């Protein structure tokens, strides 16, 4: 399926999803896996659910956590029994070759169960996410991350692989912009520091978002003025109380800290978070600030020229405003690029996309990317009615960082569920006779 159609599909379906109460119902999630409709079981590790749920919980609830854990335990136990019975059965019929299909089905079922366990584990941990704990504006904090998962959700069973494609198509420019910015800010490390050779500091969200520009290199506390920082430093030891340390620094701080300091993003699941398995530390406080705002915060600053592009870091907005309206490389699909080669790379990748020819007279007057000539517009509308700009931008904004909300594991598992089951098992409620359904599987197991 073409990703465009899928996208259109998604936008059409999405509102229903939101209103659908079953989606919001957390309890359905905690159903034991082998009871009831297997389709529901497979759908429930839905990230949307998790997030909604997460945003509902304002404070961490140890009882809920305990419930979850014991439930997981139960589930694992159940699964163990199931695998046991498979092994036992295999031993009994070891003489003859087992039908291949059955083995595969068994395997799929077990993996599905495992998957749901993993997802639940993560979601349990997700309850601990710092930003969920105290969100002044829950909606604004969650909306970008939700956006990330929407296509998948809306795409239903088969959406999984399309999402990444969509991301590519939509987000080339933004990604590119941000990457380059990251490099400028020194966020990209490029160095191979071994874990343990440096000290990891993790600031809390409030500290990151505090409008401070001067940070204590020891505790990370931020200050608006350098003088205040110097006063603060006195608390860290006598060496900061010397007149030299308290004086306005002329060149650089005299004493180098012994251990290299690196920073961790407080957002659980983020690649910049120290608990991530591929953790990439952030170099400076400024990097932390920019990273956190860009990836985990609402984009509050809208470009006044084009009213389209949104940013969470003011500097990014200013950079954009410098170029806004100029040098817009526009694809017929509505995606804009700041650089021609990026546009051409995009066009080479997607069939049927062509560069739009800007009208001379509208060039520069608005940043909004009106497709070139009228025929083009007609053509475009005929081809793909999906991209109204606001939505495209939302999507863009949200998927900057694929690791934004949850670990990639989450993504993978979801994809996996889609691929392995939505096609095979998800349909099984229709119970086509030839098809395997868990119900029959159970029967078969019990029968033997």
């Amino acid at each position, binding site marked *: 399926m073409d990703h465009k159609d899928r996208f259109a599909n998604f936008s059409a379906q999405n509102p229903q999803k939101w209103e659908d109460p079953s989606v919001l119902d957390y309890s359905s999630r905690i159903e034991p896996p082998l009871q009831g409709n297997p389709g529901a079981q497979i759908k429930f590790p839905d990230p949307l659910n998790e997030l909604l749920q997460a945003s509902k919980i304002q404070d961490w609830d140890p009882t809920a956590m305990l419930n979850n854990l014991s439930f997981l335990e139960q589930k694992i136990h159940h699964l163990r029994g199931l695998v046991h019975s498979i092994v036992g059965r295999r031993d009994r019929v070891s003489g003859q070759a087992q039908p291949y299909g059955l083995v595969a089905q068994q395997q799929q079922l077990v993996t599905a169960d495992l998957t749901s366990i993993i997802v639940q584990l993560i979601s349990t941990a997700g309850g601990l996410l710092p930003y969920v704990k105290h969100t002044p504006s829950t909606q604004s904090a969650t909306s970008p991350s939700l956006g990330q998962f929407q296509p998948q959700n809306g795409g239903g069973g088969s959406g999984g692989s399309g999402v990444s494609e969509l991301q590519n198509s939509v987000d080339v420019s933004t990604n590119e912009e941000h990457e380059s910015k990251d490099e400028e800010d020194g966020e990209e490390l490029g160095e191979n520091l071994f874990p343990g050779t440096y000290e990891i500091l993790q600031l809390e969200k409030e500290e990151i978002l505090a409008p401070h520009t001067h940070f204590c290199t020891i505790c990370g506390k931020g200050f608006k003025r350098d003088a205040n920082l110097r006063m603060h430093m006195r608390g860290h030891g006598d060496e900061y109380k010397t007149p030299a340390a308290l004086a306005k620094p002329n060149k650089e701080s005299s004493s180098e800290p012994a251990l290299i300091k690196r920073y961790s993003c407080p957002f659980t699941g983020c690649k910049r978070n120290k608990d991530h398995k591929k953790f990439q530390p952030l170099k400076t406080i400024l990097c932390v600030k920019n990273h956190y705002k860009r990836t985990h915060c609402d984009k509050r600053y809208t470009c006044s020229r084009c009213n389209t592009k949104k940013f969470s870091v003011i500097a990014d907005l200013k950079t954009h405003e410098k170029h806004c309206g100029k040098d817009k490389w526009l694809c017929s699909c509505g995606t804009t690029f700041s650089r*021609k*080669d990026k546009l*051409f790379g995009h*066009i*080479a990748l997607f069939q*049927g*996309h*062509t*560069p739009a*020819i800007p009208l001379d007279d509208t060039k520069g007057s608005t940043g909004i990317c009106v497709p070139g*000539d009228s*025929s*083009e517009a007609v053509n475009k509308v005929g081809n793909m009615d999906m991209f109204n700009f606001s939505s495209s931008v939302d999507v863009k904004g949200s998927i900057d960082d694929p690791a934004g909300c949850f670990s990639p594991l989450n993504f993978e598992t979801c994809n996996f569920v889609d691929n392995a089951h939505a096609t095979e098992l998800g349909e099984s409620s229709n119970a086509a006779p030839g098809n395997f359904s868990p119900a029959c599987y159970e029967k078969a197991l019990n029968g033997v």
Partner: protein
Amino acid sequence: MPPFQSNKNILSLTEDLLVRIYEILVSESDRKSFRLACREFLRIDSLTRKHLRILRIEFLPVLLHKYPRLQSLDLSACPRIEDGVVSLLLSQVGPASNSLRFGNWTRGLKSLVLSRATGLRFSGLEMLARACPCLESVDVSYCCGFGDREAAALSFAVGLRELNMDKCLGLTDVGLAKIAVGCLKLEKLSLKWCMEITDLGVDLLCKKCVDLKFLDVSYLKVTNESLHSIASLLKLEALGLMACPLIDDVGLQFIERGCPLLKAIDVSRCQGLSSSGLMFVVRGHGNLLELNAGYCLSELSTALLHQIKNLKHLEVIRIDGARIPESSFQVISANCKSLVEIGVSKCVGVTNMGLMRLVSGCINLRVLNLTCCHSITDAAISAIANSCRNLVCLKLESCNMITEKGLCQLGSFCLLLEEIDLTDCCGVNDKGLEYLSRCSELSCLKLGLCSNISDKGLSYISSNCKKIHELDLYRCTGIGDDGLDSLSSGCKELKKLNLSYCNEVSDRGLGYIGRLEELCDLEMRALNKITGVGLESVAAGCKRLADLDLKHCEKVDDLGFWALAYYSRNLRQINLSYCAISDMALCLVMGNLTRLQEAKLVHLCNVTVEGFELALRACCIRIKKVKLLATLRFMLSAEILETLHARGCIIRWD
């Protein structure tokens, strides 16, 4: 038996037989005679005709009705094709019309030539591209104003296989991308002089149009990156890289490893290349048929020669401008037996001995370019004539040592010779022309600057070479009116004639020229004996005249120009610089000649600013290019200049 007798008429032949007869007729004039014979033949003509090249757009609607099976339409000779005209054509006789009787002319159209159709813009092109579902070939070369919008319009012709966009100066990567994405079946694409195209565009093209067999990116500022992309084209057979200043040997290394079917490559005038780059190409493509490396090598190195030796199938090699060691000819002669064309013009080291060795092996040569090989003499010509009996084209410009002896050999052995260039060969005399006239197939003869020939020599040619199409007598001061007399009675097929600076020619001579009905291109600069009378006889006689150069014919008066304005309705280009034309006559010429596309009008001492203004107003809707004195720039009204500009006319300020 009278009834039976009457049935044996040619008209009793069935339609298909008549069609077969018609198809045997190749030349346009024969076909014209055929269709003028009778109504039945005319009907056969209109049923069978597949190609149409028209001179006047106003007849097009009628003609489109007449020829329902048209596959190819050439509008390049029409002065004005505009969007409005196209929309009219499409609505009156096209798909929108209800006339079932004539069918739909766009339905079967496969080829469309719109070269120099500068009046057309993207909306017209788009209408055409959408209306012709079978369109396979489009030529919009030299439509200098064309750019991305026009390319986008063309991209609606999804079945396009061949596209020529030479000198569409506005075309950028964006337009090329439109075409690359829209016309995925493209097999042949020429982008000469589309200066805005860069590596990005070429790269995208190569990714999208994988069926490309022919690609010409000559004169573009593309780099090795483009060659890297081009190397991925698996079906590419011919690659034009002429005068690409930014490519070098590294780029050709990509070509060595790519393009497995490459048959022809043109790297002439590529400044960045050396013989090692060519060695890569030759090494990678042992089946190469054509190698054009003119003016890009300083020397034909032994290493390169060693590689070229392996090209057993090589048919064409051009290494103009290089230094060639004498031994090279031996090697080429011994190894490249299938050579048909050799170009060694302006090469240093081309000697009699070398050429003798060359032709001893390459006996199939048909085209040989020895321009400016000053050291060759009759001995070499004699060897060539003896070995290469199939020689069709021989260029000997500036080979001063050639005399009638050499021409005698050519006249004796090279009886298939069609084209010979003897410009600036002062050894050519009347006797030589007499020998040469034995080559009765001769169609193109260039004798410019041969001051030793006279009317007598020309009469030999006139009486024996009946097929002459093109004759260049530039500065042949020995030629006078009598020569033109014999010429006009002998060479009736003459189409192109250059008489510039033949000072002896007078009005009488031009009277003879007037008998050449096929003549369409006449250059007669600085004939200071001719007056309006002479010009009148030319204008009245040469009905097909399309290109006329009268520069410095200062004695021609208004009488002549009036005649020109009255008779020469097919005139397309005119040079009137330094003529004594008046305001009135200029106005008449420019206004009356409805096919006129280009005029050079500098130093017209009798024309006032008002005269220019009026003349330009009279022709502004169809003129495409005009040359004027720079001083006029601020004297002409802004209005007329704007009109000309809006109409796509290019003004060259001298």
